[in-house]
């Protein structure tokens, strides 16, 4: 009996030790970013790092707001991500509804194509996408960038949306049909209000994913006034001699709002992510 108890005790000690180790790995870098953003560079460049900033300095944030560039990048990114999220939502509501409700033979083919295109590395198509967009005069524009990032997210978002539509009983539409309500009106008036959780999941997911985009921006957009955040961070602030307070302040401003967005919509996001992956 005693041995069993000892085994259980050591098991649970092991368990909590593992939790502490893994969570330290996952969360400490985030703390370190916050702490460094509040430290003067002279404090950050000591041979023995300080765990807490000894003299809290807002210098990094002040510089970012004053230099004008950072806010431009930030605003560009908000515009691109928001626009992309809206477009992705509209497209995936339409396509997701079609895939969930109408079972035609070519649906399978379409789904296969979608998952195939989801697999493709972005760079593999960027080279020729760049040449195509250039011929259309869409390189170095936000429109070209938005359409390109939409295309990368649409395949997953469509299947995500379809899984939400699958959860809504078909009887509703049948009833609406009997009442003489057309297909389009049924979709907009009856189904759309029920799909709000799915819409939230898709829009937040696509906002976060397009906020994360780096490759499209860096190849398709060249003028600094149109740069997005990731691109601006990499190209402006990460140089030969790095101002770590500034970089960490910029990183904090780029990351923290997304963390809050995620926490706020967590319920929908997690449900969507799990449905999108585990079901398959």
């Amino acid at each position: 009996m005693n041995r069993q108890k000892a085994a259980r005790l050591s098991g649970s000690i092991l368990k909590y030790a593992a939790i502490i180790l893994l969570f330290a790995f996952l969360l400490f870098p985030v703390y370190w970013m916050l702490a460094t953003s509040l430290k003067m560079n002279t404090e950050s460049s000591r041979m023995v790092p300080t765990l807490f900033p000894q003299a809290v300095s807002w210098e990094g944030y002040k510089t970012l707001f004053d230099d004008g560039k950072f806010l431009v990048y930030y605003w560009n990114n908000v515009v691109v991500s928001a626009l992309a999220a809206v477009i992705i939502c509209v497209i995936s509501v339409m396509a997701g509804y079609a895939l969930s409700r109408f079972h035609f033979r070519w649906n399978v083919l379409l789904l296969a194509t979608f998952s195939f295109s989801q697999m493709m590395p972005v760079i593999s198509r960027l080279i020729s996408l760049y040449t195509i967009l250039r011929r259309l005069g869409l390189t170095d524009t936000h429109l070209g960038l938005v359409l390109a990032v939409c295309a990368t997210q649409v395949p997953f978002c469509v299947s995500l949306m379809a899984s939400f539509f699958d959860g809504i009983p078909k009887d509703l539409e049948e009833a609406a049909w009997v009442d003489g309500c057309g297909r389009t009106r049924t979709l907009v008036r009856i189904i759309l209000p029920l799909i709000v959780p799915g819409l939230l999941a898709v829009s937040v997911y696509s906002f976060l994913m397009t906020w994360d985009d780096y490759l499209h921006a860096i190849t398709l957009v060249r003028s600094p006034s149109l740069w997005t955040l990731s691109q601006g961070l990499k190209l402006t602030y990460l140089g030969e001699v790095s101002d770590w307070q500034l970089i960490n302040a910029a990183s904090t401003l780029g990351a923290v709002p997304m963390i809050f967005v995620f926490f706020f919509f967590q319920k929908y996001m997690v449900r969507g992510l799990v449905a999108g992956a585990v079901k398959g």
Partner: protein
Amino acid sequence: MRNAPSLRRAGSPRRRKDLLFCLVLLLPAILLCTAFILIPIVDSVAMSFTGYKLANLTKGTPGVWNDFGNYTRLWRAGKLQSAVWLTLGFVSITVALTFLLSMSLALILNTDPKGARMLRSVMMIPWVIPTVIAGLLWSWIYANPYGLLRYLVSVFTSGRVTDFGILNGKSTAIWGVIIAALWKQIPLMTLLLLAGMQNVPDDILEAAQIDGAGYFTRLIHILIPYMRSVIAVTVSMCIIENFKQYPLFATLTNGGPMGATTTLAVLSYDEAFVNYNYGSGAAVTTVWLAIMAVVVLLFNLAFRRRQS
């Protein structure tokens, strides 16, 4: 009985109308994916067999067939081989470690430790942080001389190694990227595995425990077989994700030092957008696509065979 034919006749135009409606709904998605994904992929495979450089782009002249010139040139320079091995090494190590650590974390969180709900949501923070910012964050930790890692290494070696820069060494640089990739990817995989774990019936696990099956026996013979499809999906996702990895390399190493982290992603980007040799870049991505397709296919075949 008499109603049946009329119903069918009424149903037929409705079905045709549905088909049209369905097509209209699908059209934007199909157009976008065709124009921005499928055509570029086909186009870039075709481009890889031609000499296509900056001049072709500015003058709008099509590339000229060059007898596999892009491939042979990359092969003779040894760039292609080293990039292929590096990519395969990076992907296999990262995927194996991500799976091991995520599975362990999911198993632990599944036992409902204190604060499990809170842990489960703060766990997702690295996943939400944009990849470039993740790269910046780790490059500050790795920074030599002021980074945290250098300090930790000097403490653990009691002052013998005082200038450890993980990204400066040819053999260690890839590990720096692997650690950052793990940090970014463990959260999502843990979340998905945890969700899959919740579908494993409790009574079977309990019955096995009563029969005297130990923890690892239950894990290998019950839990993992039940989670097979979730594991297959999440691991394939992880393989694809790491094959595609570029932003971390771009922010952490840029392919260096001395090409020690030049994976296929980095090589193709450099060929196309740094050297402006689009044909050559397309050749790298074609090889890359082929390898990725083979790996994912093999993984799925192996997994399915074991299942049956």
